[in-house]
């Protein structure tokens, strides 16, 4: 009876082999799809068991922390309430995540590479997330929110050298602590408080876009600051007469003068001279037509550019009226972050440092896990072009439309913008940088639906934030 017993043993070895195969299937090869199964609550429950790391401002102010609940899970508290609601976002088991809480989820939950997590597994370490130290300045943020004074709008301030986002204000705000109770209501609110206007608000840029046109004009060498163009009004652009603001005629003036007085007809002619392709090339270098780079959820970052029926056009589309686009009209829609990047290119000697909200990631033992630092996003224009442009933009603040942004003792350069909306109100802008000789801040300010002008509404807001940021250094 040896042979049948032996064969029986072989059969059992084979049966156990099936069990090993099945176990490896569920634990390794098929594990991914099991974890993604919507009926599987384990991934969510595991997240709730992790003590997420802190989110801190640049000065150490705690923006988000974890508190333990009676049932051994953790939940989030936001000690600063509404102040940095859009940048920080929120994270709740049942209501999802937004903002940095979402984009830095891996760091905040302490997700590690395979080797370290194997070690943690063997030691049975309880999971604690890493802390995220942001570049945000709560004082300047407060100044920006106060300066907006209850008007819907946004302020974005960047450090042009490093790309650090120092202010990211969007009004109206929400209180992330209340998300579990108010999420549904906030979603239905016609004022869209959940929308981060800094990265998701798309507005007509008005004359601030002339900075982009000027950069292309000077950098290609086709124009000089003292090139003379006919600034009379109206001027036929793409077969339709274009008027200057208030119908003023300027005669033949230099580009510097045309920027200072924001002369539409001059810049529209410059745009037509440069042509669609050149404009497209420079716009793309500034970051238009792509989601701006930022350590922020992709779904909360919108691209800027020419839009038609809600769709982003190709940069050289036939639908583009390049003359009107060159003065920020036509179908242009831009985010405040994109316009802050335009200012940052001028401030940063022609290059844009990749914008980032996170300064560094620090583990619970205080070791720096990830130091973001400066990386170059794009080389837009020559160093000289940027210097010339700064000089021209200084004139705007010194004697042109942007005098309200002037600071005593610090030279500010900038450009105002006022785009008329269909309903008779204006979308007003100011983009700028300071100090001109060694720029430390690049800023973009916009306010929705106001009766005022960029120079009277947006420039004073920029002034207050610049003062705070430069004073704080």
């Amino acid at each position, binding site marked *: *009876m040896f042979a049948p017993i*032996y064969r029986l043993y072989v059969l*059992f070895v084979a049966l*156990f082999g099936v069990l090993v195969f099945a*176990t490896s299937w569920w*634990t390794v090869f098929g*594990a991914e799809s099991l974890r993604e*199964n919507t009926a599987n609550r384990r991934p969510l429950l595991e997240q709730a068991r992790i003590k997420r790391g802190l989110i801190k401002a640049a000065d150490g102010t705690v923006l988000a922390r974890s508190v333990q609940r009676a049932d051994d*899970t953790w939940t989030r508290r936001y000690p600063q309430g509404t102040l940095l609601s859009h940048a920080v976002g929120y994270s709740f088991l049942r209501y999802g995540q937004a903002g940095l809480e979402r984009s830095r989820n891996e760091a905040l939950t302490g997700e590690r590479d395979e080797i370290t997590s194997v070690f943690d597994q063997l030691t049975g370490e309880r999971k604690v997330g890493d802390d995220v130290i942001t570049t945000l300045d709560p004082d300047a943020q407060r100044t920006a929110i106060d300066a907006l004074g209850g008007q819907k709008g946004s302020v974005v301030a960047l450090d042009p050298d490093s790309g650090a986002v120092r202010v990211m204000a969007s009004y109206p705000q929400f209180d992330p602590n209340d998300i579990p109770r108010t999420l549904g209501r906030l979603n239905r609110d016609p004022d869209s408080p959940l929308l981060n206007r800094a990265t998701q608000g798309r507005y007509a840029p008005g004359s601030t876009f002339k900075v982009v046109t000027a950069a292309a004009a000077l950098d290609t060498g086709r124009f000089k600051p003292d090139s003379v163009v006919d600034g009379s009004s109206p001027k036929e652009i793409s077969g339709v007469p274009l008027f200057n603001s208030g119908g003023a005629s300027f005669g033949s003036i230099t580009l510097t003068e045309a920027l200072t007085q924001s002369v539409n007809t001059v810049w529209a002619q410059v745009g037509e001279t440069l042509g669609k392709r050149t404009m497209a090339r420079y716009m793309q270098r500034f970051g238009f037509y792509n989601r701006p780079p930022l350590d922020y959820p992709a779904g909360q970052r919108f691209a800027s550019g020419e839009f038609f029926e809600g769709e982003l056009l190709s940069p050289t589309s036939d639908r583009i009226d390049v003359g009107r686009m060159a003065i920020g009209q036509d179908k242009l829609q831009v985010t405040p972050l994109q316009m802050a990047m335009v200012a940052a290119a001028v401030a940063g000697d022609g290059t844009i440092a990749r914008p980032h909200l996170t300064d560094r990631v620090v583990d619970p033992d205080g070791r720096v896990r990830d130091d973001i630092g400066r990386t170059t996003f794009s080389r837009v224009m020559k160093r000289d072009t940027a210097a010339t442009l700064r000089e021209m933009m200084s004139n705007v603040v010194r004697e042109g439309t942007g005098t309200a942004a002037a600071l005593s003792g610090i030279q500010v350069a900038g450009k105002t913008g006022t785009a008329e909306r269909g309903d008779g109100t204006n979308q007003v802008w100011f983009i700028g940088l300071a100090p001109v000789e060694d720029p430390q801040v690049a800023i973009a300010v916009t306010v929705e639906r106001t009766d005022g002008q960029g120079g009277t509404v947006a420039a004073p807001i920029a002034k207050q934030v610049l003062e705070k940021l430069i004073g704080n250094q």
Partner: protein
Amino acid sequence: MSERNRELFGLLPSALLLTAGFTAIFVQQSEQLSDLSLTYGAIFLGLCLAAHLFLRVALPHADPYLFPLVAVLASFGLVMIYRIDQELAREQAQWFVVGLILFCATIVFLRDYRRLERYRYTIAIVSIGLLMLPRFPVVGGLVNGAYLSISIGPITFQPAEFAKIGIVVFLASYLRDTRQVLVLGARRFLGLTIPPLKHFGPLLVVWGAAMMMLIVIKDLGSSLMFFGAFLALLYVATNRASFVVVGMAMFSVGAWLFGSQIEHVKDRVTIWRDPFEPTLVDEEGYQIAQSLFAQADGGVLGQGFGQALLHIPGGGTLLPAPHTDLIYAVITDELGLVGACGVLLVYLLIVERGFRIAMLARDSFSTLLAAGLTAVFALQVFVIVGGVTKVIPLTGVTLPFVSYGGSSIVANFVLLALLLLVSDRARTPD
């Protein structure tokens, strides 16, 4: 080195496993610091040593590896259960004591186990009676749609655990008598070897018993285990694969015919086919779905001892029956593929030792008894692990020596005692 000294050294892995396992839990749950866990480990090791000393005296020539392998499983099971529920671990430890007492008693009183042959029909009837018990009112009852346990006062008891031993004893004895006739009297018909009709009867009775289990107990897993053990024995006794093929065909047809009539069995199969179907996943399919989700968390190396998520924070069970039916899923979750394969390997080694004992035995009854006991043991592991890993429909049998459960522990210790008795007789020098 003598057999018993090898056995003593073989206990070292269990000692290490116990120390490491309990220390891990001890360190991890240090907030509720109690050195009780270490005491458990010490007591368990003491019990193993005592059993070893007993074997030294009572069965000096028995296989030296079986007991240490079982001790590894048992200590591993104890650590797992301790991690799931400390109170259950205490009860399990008590059942170990009872199991070891019955283990020793079996060895003392059944020294000449061949006496069992004389009572084979009594044993068969008692075993079948045991299997039917859960259907009787007062003591029995429906649990999870199947009749698998009886309750007498506070004690719940799974009669199938004992019945499996009785039925193997009966089959071994019956087939010893008839194996020659079954082979010699067989005729070839349409390319198949058919046993003589006269002896076909008792085989039909076994088939009928398996079908009855399906109908009466409503449990596909147990009937698969019993009928599988029967086919294994029939094959060993006759060396005719055709008998097995015929038997399997009969079982499949029967299972399909009767199974499709019984709601519970039918449901189990539907669940098995797609447990993630939205109408099932939070209802009948919950158990198997959660079992697979738990295993997916384990990965290659597992999450670590005590890390598996068994309860929903704030109350509620996430993984049902983690200490009995789904203990393999908890092992996979915490120790990963590697740990689970380790456990399967220990079972396979036990099966190897069991079959080796069968081959060494000097008379047919001993061979058939050892082979049958080993086969039913291996099938039980296959049925529950296969159920938990969705190879076959999930049914409620225990993982021998690892799952929580008094009857399982005690019955499997009796099974072990019988194997060691056969082994000792076979290896005793003349």
